[in-house]
């Protein structure tokens, strides 16, 4: 009689919980079906493709300047980095070299965009863990400052379409330097606020340390890049490994994590905000006067036939543009290598074995942008 209960275990069935396309934890339209046994996740089936708008097919029917708008709409949290990658791909094919002032403007705006994107992550990550409004309003106060600056420079808060192959569309306003300095100052204050609020808060540590561990070998195998890869301890940053544009003129450290869990991913991104402020300040000091577009720009750009795989360091990882041109005015094939697409493919590997609450934390710690995943 004694072993009656132990011999046949209580046969429970696994429940399919649908963290559906419309859910506060999915930062956009992404659905994951969690097969859970009690509270622990046994299996996870991600469903993407809700935001697929065919940016690649549309770009093949647009000329080179019109296709810039689609880069903002795929990567809507780091638009300048995406535009910079596309514009440099076209420049590599067309043999255009942008003047120095334009390069500096691009680097400053791209780094500021990285800061605003990381603040978006901090706000959303805090909300995923339960600090309902506080982390969000701290992060968004800084993000608003950066977006106001972008509005003064380009005229738009989200869809800039400001970079052009060969430089930038028009020059920056006169008070650009003071404004950027003010925004950097505030970004550091915001980062310090969030650091004080979250970093060594015991409950935050308990909820994120050791959750969703991705060791270095798996990260490389899944093609994870950016903060997710650096949190696993791989010291690889495209701005340092394969410097594009003028990134080799600035010195900045690359923060890396130790054991690749959600806590390290949070720390890496928080440290990257400070590194980006350092880059912006150096770029601001060295920014020369001068033209922002080469003198004789062809009215309708026809890059030479050929192909290039241009890659830039976006806040979420390596954003690549594989551009094939056959000499016409329209790109023959424009393939966008999305950083979140690869980071997300490692979600199941990280989440199985954890609790339902951890599945939300891990999804938040990867910091996905669904438009970029689905293009």
């Amino acid at each position, binding site marked *: 009689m004694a072993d009656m209960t132990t011999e046949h275990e209580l046969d429970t069935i696994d429940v399919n919980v649908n963290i559906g396309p419309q859910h506060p934890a999915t930062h956009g339209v992404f659905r994951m079906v969690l097969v859970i046994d009690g509270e622990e996740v046994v299996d996870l089936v991600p469903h993407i493709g809700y935001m697929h708008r065919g940016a690649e097919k549309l770009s093949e029917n*647009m000329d080179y*300047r*019109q*296709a*810039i*708008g689609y880069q903002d709409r795929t990567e809507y949290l780091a638009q300048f980095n995406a535009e910079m990658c596309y514009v440099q791909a076209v420049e590599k094919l067309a043999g255009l070299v942008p003047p120095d002032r334009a390069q500096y403007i691009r680097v400053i705006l791209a780094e500021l965009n990285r800061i605003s994107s990381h603040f978006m992550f901090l706000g959303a990550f805090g909300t995923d863990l339960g600090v309902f409004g*506080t982390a969000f309003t*701290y992060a968004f*106060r800084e993000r*608003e400052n950066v977006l106001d600056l972008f*509005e*003064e*420079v*380009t*005229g*738009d808060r989200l*869809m800039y*379409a400001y970079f052009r192959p060969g430089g930038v*569309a*028009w*020059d*920056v*306003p*006169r008070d650009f330097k003071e404004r950027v300095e003010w925004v950097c100052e505030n970004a550091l204050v915001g980062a310090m*606020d969030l650091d*004080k*609020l*979250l*970093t*060594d*808060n*015991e*409950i*935050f*540590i308990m909820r994120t340390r050791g959750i969703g561990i991705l060791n270095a070998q798996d990260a490389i195998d899944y093609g994870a890049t950016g903060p997710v890869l650096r949190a696993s301890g791989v010291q690889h940053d495209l701005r340092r490994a394969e410097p594009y544009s003028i990134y080799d003129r600035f010195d900045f450290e690359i923060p890396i994590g130790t054991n690749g869990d959600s806590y390290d991913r949070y720390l890496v991104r928080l440290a990257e905000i400070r590194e980006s402020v350092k880059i912006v300040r150096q770029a601001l000091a060295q920014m020369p006067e001068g033209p922002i577009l080469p003198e004789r720009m062809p009215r309708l750009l026809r890059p030479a036939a050929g192909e290039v795989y241009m890659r830039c360091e976006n806040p979420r990882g390596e954003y690549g543009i594989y551009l094939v041109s056959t000499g016409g005015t329209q790109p023959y094939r424009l393939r966008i290598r999305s950083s979140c697409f690869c980071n997300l493919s490692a979600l199941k590997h990280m989440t199985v074995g954890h609790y339902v609450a951890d599945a939300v934390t891990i999804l938040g710690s990867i910091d996905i942008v669904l438009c970029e995943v689905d293009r």
Partner: protein
Amino acid sequence: MIGVLRSLTATMGTMLRKPVTIQYPTQHRKVPERERAFPILLWDFDIDEPFCTGCHACERACPVECMTVTMKDNPKQAAGESKRRKIVDEFFIDYARCMRCNICVEVCNFDAIAMNNTWTGHELSVVDREDLVMDRDQLMALSKEKQIRPWVPGA
């Protein structure tokens, strides 16, 4: 437990700072002059006719093809008042399709089209989507009332 106390002081610390809320309908945020709300046509006040000559440059360059332009001879050119041989006859912009990418302003070689940098451009809301298709007079109305602030790159 120090981390717990530290984050408590963090929230109490920010309580003493000034709240950042702008109460929208009563107070409006200052909009920079480079604001890109929606394209509008500019009015030439000294010859009292639109700058636009209906040359289809913007219509061809528009990625989402939201413009329709027709051209006609300029009666004033015959009367000798203006140098423009052609003037715009019909000009429709479908604001529902326009993605505000500013390519039409760059392509136009008569500087006839500009981006609306006023709050009314943002606060335009209509009941029926077809009302978003603006005809020539609606596009020129704002410029006639001198609400559009001109800006020069680098200013």
